[in-house]
């Protein structure tokens, strides 16, 4: 790997937040923030979907499982959805996801849903910076690392007992 990149990696820990933005409102707001040269934390990595209604809960869990420290979902305000009510569907899933991740031991602040319209570039900046700050304060989630530790623990048990203890939980989401 290039030395400059190595230097980047040696910098103090910075969170990585995976963002799912809808094409019509929040992704356009991100474009607007860019055109307006607003400055926000580089921790957010945006994935564009047509509608927040396309966000499968599995996407969110997968992002955490693959090493995201936070997940941000952005959609249109209620009543503004380009597809009439996809954002309502997302809102319902968000309530479910919120309960799920807390049960899994993930801090609720790591998942956030925001309605950001195409004209709200400044809100996008505010939300990203605020979330970045909160996740930075929480520290790394590092689920992939935890999975490895658990694998080792399980391996140890198998080595000692010659068999798997019953009812091992499935850790790959």
């Amino acid at each position, binding site marked *: 790997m*290039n030395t*400059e*990149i190595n*230097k*980047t*990696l040696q*910098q103090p*820990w*910075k969170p*990585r937040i*995976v963002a799912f933005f809808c*094409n*019509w*409102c929040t*992704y356009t707001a*991100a*474009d607007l*923030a*860019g*055109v307006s*040269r607003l*400055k*926000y934390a*580089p921790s957010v*990595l*945006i*994935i*564009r*979907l*047509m*509608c927040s*209604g*396309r*966000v*499968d*809960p*599995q*996407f969110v869990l*997968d*992002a955490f499982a*693959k*090493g*995201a420290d936070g997940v941000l979902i952005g959609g249109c305000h209620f*009543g*503004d959805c*380009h*597809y*009439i009510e*996809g954002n309502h*569907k997302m809102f319902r*899933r968000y309530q479910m996801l919120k309960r799920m991740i807390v049960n899994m031991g993930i801090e609720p602040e790591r998942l956030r849903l925001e309605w950001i*319209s*195409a*004209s*709200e570039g400044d809100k996008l*900046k505010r939300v990203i910076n605020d979330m970045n700050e909160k996740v930075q304060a929480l520290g*790394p989630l*590092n689920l*992939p*690392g935890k999975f490895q530790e658990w694998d080792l623990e399980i391996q140890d048990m198998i080595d000692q007992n010659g068999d798997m203890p019953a009812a091992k939980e499935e850790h790959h989401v």
Partner: protein
Amino acid sequence: MSSTSKNGSVRIGYYVCHCGHNIAANVDVAIVAKEIEKLPGVVITREYKYMCSDPGQELIQEDIKELNLNRIVVASCSPLLHEQTFRNALTHGGLNPYFLQMVNIRENVSWVHTDRELATQKAIDLSRAAVRRVAIHKALETRQVSINPDVLVVGGGISGINAALTLANAGKKVYLVERDPTIGGHMAQFDKTFPTLDCAACILTPKMSDVKNHPNITLWTYSEVVEFSGFVGSFKAKIKHKPRYIIEDLCVGCLDCIDACVYKNPKYRDEFNVGLSKRKPIYIPFPQATPQVVVVDPENCIQVKRGKCKMTCVDVCDRNAFDFTQQETFEEIQVGSVILTTGFQTFNPEKTPYYGYGKYDNVYTSLEVERIVNSAGPTGGEVLMRDGQKPKKVGIVHCVGSRDDRTNKWCSRVCCMYSLKLASLIKEHTGAEVYNFYIDMRTPGKGYEEFYDKVLKEKVHFIRGRVAEVTDWAAEKEEEGKLIIRVEDTLVGAVRRIPVDMVVLSVGIEPQTDAHDVRRLFNISCSTEGFFTERHPKLAPVETAAEGIFIAGCCQGPKDIPDSVAQSGAAASQALALIDKGVMEMEPNTAYVLEEACSGCKSCISLCPYTAITFVEERKKAEINEALCKGCGTCVAACPSSAIMQNLFEDDEIYSEIEGLLSIPQL
């Protein structure tokens, strides 16, 4: 899922754009290219100054041929800007256009981050995700929908009139819907137009009659769009016709019924003269109203309200045009495109009580003064105040409800010019001393600065400063009985008190109060203020985010008559372009059902807002009608069996993006 190329393997070309300095200044593109080159499947990486330019696109096309590439990733600006450009480049290079993935490293990276190293790292992360994703892209066919050639124009002001006439003259069928009893809009209320001072009615009314008489235009006044659905090429609109209690086809506009009305004197607020005069319960908004049909005001007509009137109006009508049994009627039409020209409202100066509007009789809005100076207006063109006096000194206060943190922040663009016009007209009519109180004079436009110069030479006074208040509290003898304008003259550097007889408030332009309802009805977006948002502020000024829906005039933002006409012409030509092509190419981002995986649980059926999903009883499977699917993907995310997929946004494609973003651990 990945489709194989001629030699069976994925061969990716990666192109990173400098965008002049826009990207290169904040992202080390050379490092990005070097990092991406290491990824599996990447055959070539290149950096170039302007990828969107012809040589940039040719670079891709040559590489496709010479290096046998079958996937392309372009890291440049937002896909909303140039995705189509690069898709076309792929097509010209002989590749399916959907084997492209764009990485937004301008709007999402270089423009919003300051730390070059972190920005470079982010560009690499995003690019890695795109490379992973593109490897499993599928070849897709563009969908085509046919375009119904009929057009709906909503709003009959000058913008709507011009758009409708342009389309109708090109041989297209137009429905023009106006909610007031007449077309003409605000322009019909104006006296003269700047900077040429030609009379507004003289240039507008011939166009209004053209609309009425045009064989290709169906004019529906006193009507509103109440329901709207469908998609580009085949929209459905439901129009409500409000009862006028007059059969429009029979009335010839002789106005005998108005004279015959049991109310001998006009009693009710005349909306056209902004309340400066009265009208009867049966009235015609103004003499040149189009259509030339009277209208009965249901709130005040005794027959409509109580059914117990002598109906002297009916007796004099030899055309038998009255019908007091009329009800609201509804009509459904089908159109292929829509032009929204719903206009504006003027700022209500009661929100700035310090200017005394509503408190002092002789404080007027500019729109009221337009009517006062008009020869067909309530005073017959004589500038008389509410007390019947001719003013000797007049103060015109600029920027009321404009450029003000307390009210509206935006510049309304027309007030400086119309204030100059009113100053000139008032001076011409009365010989009064006229004072203009301005913050900045904004007179850009052909002949506008010259007009300002002309008014300056007419010895109109100009005082630079925002007016603090209008009061009748006299500090000196000569101020008694006058309205005193208190202002800081910023050129002199002193607070001044200017006593005048009449105050004109140059009120700004605001979105209509129901702009948000209209926006929701047509599924377009608007700015925080309520002006409708164009697709691109420079490159797509009349298009909206919704295909086939165009905007023009003041509903998009404050503008004057020449600009409204130019913009409505542009909107009409965009609609014409759509109609003449006959078909519209649609993103192939529809959802489809994998039948073998579908359990027939019906969860998806109720989720679809377009009723595109049906349940096939014989097979006990869900089925998606591709023509109705708009590609939101809500059903895809909700299917408990993962049996629904979405083209362009396949589950696997999203997962590979997530994996790509996070594949290098950051600890």
